[in-house]
């Protein structure tokens, strides 16, 4: 279950605040996954005291609203990433960045599809630079794209470009994954599916034996 409480002393109108919070939730908590199970209890409550003495923010179109939006996005993304980092049994955080779609939503959808893939997650735990599983989870995300424009890199190592698998240093790519696992660091997967302006991110973690152990012992 994900629970969150957000506070601010910015002065903001209720309808604007509710929109800012939902947009930020969509860009953060709704973009993480550990095990694919949506809880009965996921809740984020956000309170704005208005005590900072700032100008009242009464429209989403105002520059001040965009500034507040960016701050709320940052705080929730920071927290969201720490949840994925702390996923049950996880040895590393997996950050998936997708570019080249026609919209932010489409990119976010692909990114989450990759972060959610049990096979990709297991491959990361196995320190296997398995571009095939990543490509597969891009393909079933539900966002149309031209396969020949697919590009995949892992920690800066290009694995696929123009829809074609590339020769790459498998030992180095595996070492990258191993190092991330040993240091509880971050594995970065970058994907491009075209030349559109859309960009989105999602965060997950690897899938280890411990995940099963923890949840086999945690009874309902």
């Amino acid at each position, binding site marked *: 279950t994900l629970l969150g409480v*957000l506070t*601010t*002393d910015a002065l903001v109108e209720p309808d604007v605040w509710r929109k800012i919070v939902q947009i930020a939730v969509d860009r953060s908590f709704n973009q993480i996954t550990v095990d694919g199970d949506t809880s009965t*209890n996921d809740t984020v409550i956000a309170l704005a005291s208005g005590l900072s003495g700032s100008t009242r923010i009464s429209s989403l179109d105002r520059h001040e609203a965009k500034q507040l939006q960016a701050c709320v996005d940052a705080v929730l993304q920071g927290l969201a990433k*720490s949840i994925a*980092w702390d996923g*049950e049994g996880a040895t590393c955080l997996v950050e998936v960045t997708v570019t080249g779609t026609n919209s932010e939503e489409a990119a976010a959808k692909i990114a989450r599809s990759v972060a959610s893939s049990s096979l990709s997650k297991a491959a990361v735990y196995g320190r296997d630079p398995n571009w095939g599983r990543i490509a597969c989870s891009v393909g079933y995300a539900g966002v149309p794209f031209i396969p020949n424009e697919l590009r995949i890199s892992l920690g800066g190592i290009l694995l696929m470009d123009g829809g074609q698998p590339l020769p790459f240093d498998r030992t180095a790519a595996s070492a990258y994954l191993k190092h991330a696992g040993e240091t509880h660091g971050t594995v970065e997967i970058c994907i491009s599916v075209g030349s559109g302006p859309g960009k989105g991110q999602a965060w997950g973690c690897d899938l280890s034996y411990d995940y099963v152990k923890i949840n086999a012992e945690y009874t309902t």
Partner: protein
Amino acid sequence: VCASSEAASNYIPKAPILLPEGPWEQVLGGVTAPKGFRAAGMYGGLRAKGEKPDLALVTCDVDAVAAGSFTTNIVAAAPVLYCRHILDNFSAARAVLINAGQANAATGDAGYQDVIECAAALAKLLQIQPEAILVESTGVIGQRIKKEALLKSLPKLTSLLSSTIEGADSAAVAITTTDLVSKSVAVETEIAGARIKVGGMAKGSGMIHPNMA
């Protein structure tokens, strides 16, 4: 019962917070960093095992503009139904009460009544309207809140409320379940010449695939 908020905040380590870069700076304090907020966390005897803090409270000294985002799981827990109802009808809130140990999900009408009773008891202690209180629960699904333990703990919990970093940290620990680390962060920035802060805390480790609206 933890003797102090400092003891509660040290129960588990803090998570590394991977904050994106931008025109803000990270500051200490979590949910208590912005002006007007206090927080506390304590062990209230709700957890099945161990004595890690399991009750948290965040309050605002004034009516705060309130927003919420909730699971879209149709089998939503009682506190989710309660909060959605409150936020459908009111735009301000003063407190968020959170328990770990029991999710109070799939508990039917009795579970919903538990939420109402907990909110009413806290409202009386804080001398505010029950509608100004929002509730979050996490833990084992299918179990109602250990209500007697919770109600008995409320006077102590309210007495621990603090605007300090320790207050925020203890609350961040008290909301955790299988989490190995607590998650708390705050940033400060300037908007139209005024310094504003945004703080937050979260918990989550398993059953994580949010789809909130």
